[in-house]
Structure formats: structure tokens, C-alpha cells
């Protein structure tokens, strides 16, 4: 046992001496591994980032909220099947709430209608256009996942009386009132004065596509007064009681909506139930596919690096054949010689891996510094995994030449010039 330890220490020492003695060669060989590890770890960082960004985005939708829409979020292949569906109306929400109230065992808590469109907002000469403007009820406050930096959502009275009040998204508030509190100020939407009653905390964007901070929320009555009824983006948001029983709630909601719509059995649903978890189900296989393909392609570059290591280990064995003979004459066993060359290959790989990981970290830090919201993630797990991958690469690429070296006939090896 002790002997193995001494041999191991000796092997590491020889490997280090060998790498030092052949700096250029070792560096170039390690470069292959550096590039491979950088590619793989960057891909790992990106995949982890995508996952985190995705989860963060889905959390914004609320884990316990289902959305009844005309369209499925995940895209409709045959849009004409959906285009003729009836739009969602506020009355649908009212009917739905009535059914929910009549079913005490229901998994559904309540429904709230929301309509939306893009609009511009002005204040004191500042103006922001393309703001996602939502008209909804006071109950929306119980669905909203974001916090308020200041103020509140409009209350029931303001809602029912269609008061001209507004809640601003973080970015909208920042753009119109830089360094000031907008609370109580009057802004102009669609030529009409609205009073700011609340500002939402920063939420970020949904999958980098749609910013939750670039929005404003009005009471539905006020919204409809000025924007009319187009209802293309109208939806009913339904809060559920237990987010672990999402499937049950979804089925229940489908049944309730069919009753609301008066659909007869056998008829296809003329609405879609959407939600974060449903979205996730649809996107997970795609995400896994991207991760697999990405890791495979970047893994190829690591494979090329491994071939470089294998080549250099073959050269190293060839060059030191006589030394192997001498060591064997002095009592080195097969295992000893095998370990020596294996450790040499692994050392180069681990050095390359560490440098590669360093590069990845620098790139990560630069990207993080430049674009804080860009979803990438550099985790301790990534460090552990990539070091393990480096060691495995070293073993795989070193094993064949090292095995050959260990089986050299000492007589032949000693005679080798």
C-alpha cells in the first residue's frame, strides 16, 4: 500500500518535471484541452443560464395561475382553427366566478378578466411608447407575482367606478420620473389624465422577449372607455388553490369554461388553457435537445484535444523507451510505468482544464458585467464536473500509450536508441 503511494508521488514528480522540461510541447498540447474545456464549460454556463432564465421567467407568470386564452402560448400550427374562436369577454369571467363560487370543493380560487394592448404614456414632456397596457380588475392584485416599490394596485371601488388611476411598471416609472417618485403624479394615456397609484418592482423580461417592467395596469372600466373592445389579447387569469394539483385544476377549469361557453359534448374546446407549468412541459424536451446537441458539438472539440494528448503521450513513450527499460531493470512494475504515463497525460489535461475554466470564468465575468440580465450561470458544480471531465479525458487519452509502455520488454527497451 505504502509502495503504491511512493510510486504515485514519484509519478507526479516525474510528470511535473516532464512538463517543465517540455514547456512548449506541453503548452501546445494543453491548448487543445483548454479550447475543449472552454467550449464545453461555456456551453454548460449557457445551458445553466437558460434554465435559470427560463425558471425565473416562468415564476413571473405565477406557479399557481392558469390563463384562459384564445390561442395556445406554445404556438398554433393551424391558426385558422383558432382564429374563428370567440374572444374572451369580461362576462365569461363573471360566469366562471359564479360556477367557482357554486363549487366549494373546486381547486380554483377565482378568475379575473384582463385585456391588453400597446399604448404610449406621457408626463411633463417625457413620453414612452410601446408600453404594454393591461386593463383588469382589482382581484389582479392577488395574482400578481411582483412586489410594489411604492403605492398599491387600484382597489375595488376605483375598479368598479372606472377611476382614471394607473400602476406603472419599473422601467416606465424610471423613464418618466427619473430620480423622482411618480406617486400621485398625473400622466397622460391616450390623451386622458391618469393618476399614478403604484409602481411595480423590477421583474426583468420573459425569456428575453417581453419585459414585465415595460407595462402599466389600469382598471378595466377605464381601459375599455378609451381603448374599446378589441379583445384579441383578452384573457382570463385563474388563481388555483394548490399548485401541486395543477393538472386537476386544469381539467376542472376546462370543464367550467365549456359550461361558460355552453359547448356541447364532443365539440372541441374553443379556448386554450395556458400556464407556466404547461409551457414548461412543452419546452423541456426542446431545451434538453439543445443542451444535448450543444454538449455533443462542444464535446467534439474536447475530443480533438484528447487526441492531441494521446499523440503526445505516444511520443513521450517513444522518446523515453530507454528510460522505461532502465526503470524496469531497477524494479518498476507494469503498474508503475502505466501510472507514470497516465499521470503525465492526466496532469496536462488537468492543467489545460484549469486554464480553460479560468478563461470561461473571465468570459463569464465580462458578460455578467456588461449584461447583468443575460442568463448565464457559473456554478461550483460546473467547476467540479469540468475538472472530472479533464481527468477522464487524461485517462482516456493516456491509457493506450501508457498501457503499451507498461508492457514493453525491458531487454528491447534497454537496447532502444
Amino acid at each position: 500500500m505504502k509502495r503504491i503511494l511512493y510510486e504515485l508521488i514519484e509519478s507526479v514528480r516525474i510528470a511535473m518535471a516532464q512538463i517543465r522540461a517540455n514547456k512548449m510541447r506541453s503548452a501546445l498540447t494543453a491548448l487543445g484541452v483548454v479550447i475543449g474545456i472552454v467550449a464545453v464549460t461555456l456551453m454548460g454556463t449557457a445551458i445553466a443560464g437558460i434554465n435559470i432564465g427560463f425558471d425565473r421567467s416562468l415564476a413571473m407568470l405565477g406557479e399557481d395561475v392558469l390563463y384562459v386564452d384564445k390561442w395556445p402560448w406554445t404556438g398554433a400550427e393551424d391558426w385558422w382553427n383558432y382564429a374563428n374562436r370567440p374572444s374572451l369577454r369580461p362576462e365569461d369571467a363573471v360566469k366562471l366566478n359564479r360556477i367557482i363560487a357554486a363549487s366549494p370543493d373546486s381547486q380554483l380560487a377565482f378568475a379575473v378578466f384582463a385585456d391588453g394592448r400597446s399604448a404610449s404614456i406621457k408626463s411633463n414632456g417625457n413620453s414612452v411608447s410601446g408600453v404594454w397596457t393591461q386593463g383588469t380588475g382589482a382581484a389582479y392584485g392577488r395574482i400578481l407575482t411582483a412586489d410594489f416599490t411604492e403605492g398599491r394596485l387600484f382597489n375595488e371601488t376605483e375598479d368598479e367606478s372606472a377611476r382614471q388611476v394607473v400602476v406603472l411598471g419599473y422601467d416606465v416609472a424610471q423613464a418618466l420620473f427619473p430620480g423622482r417618485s411618480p406617486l400621485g403624479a398625473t400622466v397622460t394615456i391616450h390623451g386622458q389624465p391618469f393618476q399614478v397609484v403604484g409602481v411595480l418592482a423590477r421583474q426583468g423580461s420573459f425569456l428575453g422577449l417581453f419585459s414585465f417592467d415595460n407595462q402599466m395596469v389600469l382598471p378595466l372600466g377605464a381601459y375599455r372607455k378609451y381603448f374599446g373592445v378589441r379583445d384579441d389579447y383578452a384573457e382570463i387569469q385563474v388563481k388555483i388553490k394548490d399548485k401541486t394539483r395543477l393538472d386537476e385544476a386544469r381539467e376542472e377549469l376546462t370543464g367550467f369554461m365549456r359550461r361558460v361557453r355552453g359547448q356541447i359534448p364532443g365539440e372541441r374546446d374553443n379556448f386554450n388553457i395556458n400556464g407556466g407549468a404547461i409551457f414548461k412541459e412543452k419546452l423541456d424536451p426542446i431545451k434538453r435537445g439543445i443542451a444535448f446537441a450543444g454538449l455533443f458539438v462542444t464535446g467534439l472539440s474536447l475530443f480533438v484535444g484528447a487526441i492531441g494528448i494521446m499523440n503526445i503521450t505516444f511520443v513521450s513513450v517513444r522518446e523515453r523507451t530507454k528510460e522505461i527499460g532502465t526503470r524496469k531493470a531497477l524494479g518498476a512494475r507494469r503498474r508503475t510505468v502505466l501510472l507514470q504515463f497516465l499521470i503525465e497525460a492526466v496532469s496536462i489535461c488537468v492543467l489545460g482544464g484549469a486554464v480553460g475554466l479560468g478563461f470561461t470564468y473571465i468570459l463569464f465575468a465580462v458578460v455578467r458585467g456588461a449584461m447583468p440580465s443575460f442568463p448565464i450561470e457559473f456554478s461550483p458544480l460546473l467547476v467540479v464536473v469540468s475538472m472530472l471531465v479533464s481527468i477522464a479525458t487524461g485517462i482516456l487519452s493516456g491509457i493506450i500509450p501508457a498501457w503499451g509502455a507498461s508492457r514493453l520488454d525491458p531487454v528491447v527497451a534497454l537496447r532502444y536508441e
Partner: protein
Amino acid sequence: MSPPAPVEARPVRPVGPLVIAIEGVTKLYQMGEETIHALRGVSLEIRRNEYLAIMGPSGSGKSTLMNMLGCLDTPTAGKYEFNGHDVAGMVDDELAEIRNREIGFVFQTFNLLPRSDALRNVELPLIYGGVPTHERHERARQTLIDVGLGNRIHHKPNELSGGQRQRVAIARALVNRPSIILADEPTGNLDSKTGVEILALFNDLYEKGNTLIVVTHEESVARHARRIIRLHDGLIESDGPAY
């Protein structure tokens, strides 16, 4: 090459117990279509504290016999016992073990590790023998002092003269206190003066009770031994005292 050494009667020490017993050993090599009979039936006994020279022209089987004695190779047929152990049937790692414990090699080209200092080189057999670090250093250092290199312990081979390198190699051969020291043309890469010094060191080691086997083609080297075996065409031609 070397000047003819003066022939003088050297004291022959009483021999000890049997170390090597070889009986009817043959060795065949396959060279393409051709089978080469390197050894055609060699029998030989070597006892503790002998100083033996093996001579013969190239192709005589001298190198093959040396590899056999050094447990680097096994015979095709015949018996080989080393301190009572049957070497003929040993596998690679068992041979490595016996080489490590029982045999000290001295090569014509020294075969030192170029990037390791003298101490490291001498320590090598002890590392393979599993000797603890502290004892390893101490023994290697002491052996280097014994061969007269006490002040060169941390020199690398390229900082040493040829004679000094061969002394490091001899220290490496001695450090594990082997049963035999096997030297292959130990003076072949040295000038004659240094060669004589190395042979004097060998004589010294012999006087101290070591068993030496020197393989050479030079009479002047062989004459330092106490017994000479001459090989010809894979057979022992003569085996007797050096003078």
C-alpha cells in the same frame, strides 16, 4: 583501448552459498523466418562473493546470458534458480520484484535519469521497493558517500564527469543491498584512466563481500575478475580462474 593491466595475483576470497544455479538453459529468438539459437544449453553456478567476468565475441550469447542472469529475460528451456527461487517460470511483475531486491545493474551508458540529481537517481530502486522517505534519503546519501560522491549528492548527471556518473550508477546498483551486481561493459564509455578507477571501485566492493558479474569483451577488464567464463556460439567454452 585500455593499457594492458599488470597481471598480479589478487587475493581470492572464500565463496559463500549458492546464489545462481543455471542448468541446460537455452534461448531461441525468432527473427522473421529464421530461428536464432542464442544459448544452446548453458549450465553455470555462481556463489556469493564471487567476482565473475563473462566474455565472448558478439553473437556468442553473452548479452542473452547477461539478460537471463539479470532476470530481464527468461529461458526458452532449462532451469534457472536465484537464491532457490525458480526464475524460469516467473511473470513480468515477479521478475521486476526480484530485480529490485536481488540485482544491481550497472550499464555501459550509465542510464541515469537526466533531470534527477544523483540522490534522486540512487533513490529510485528504493522507491520501487517501498522504502519510507526518510530511510530512502539516508540510505541513498550514505551509498553515494561510500562510492566517493559525498560532495556531489545534488548534482544532475550533466554536471558530473563520466566517471562520476558511473559512480552514481554503481551507488544506485548498491543501494538496495542486492545479491549480485551485474555490470554490462561498465568501462566501455569511459577513458582508460577513469575505467581503471571504476575497476578499482569494483575490486573494493568485492573485498567488502559483494558479488560482481561483469560482462565485457575486453581482456584487460576481465582480468580484474577472479573467474572468467568465455562463451562461444551459445555455449560455455571455458570457465575458470582469471589467472
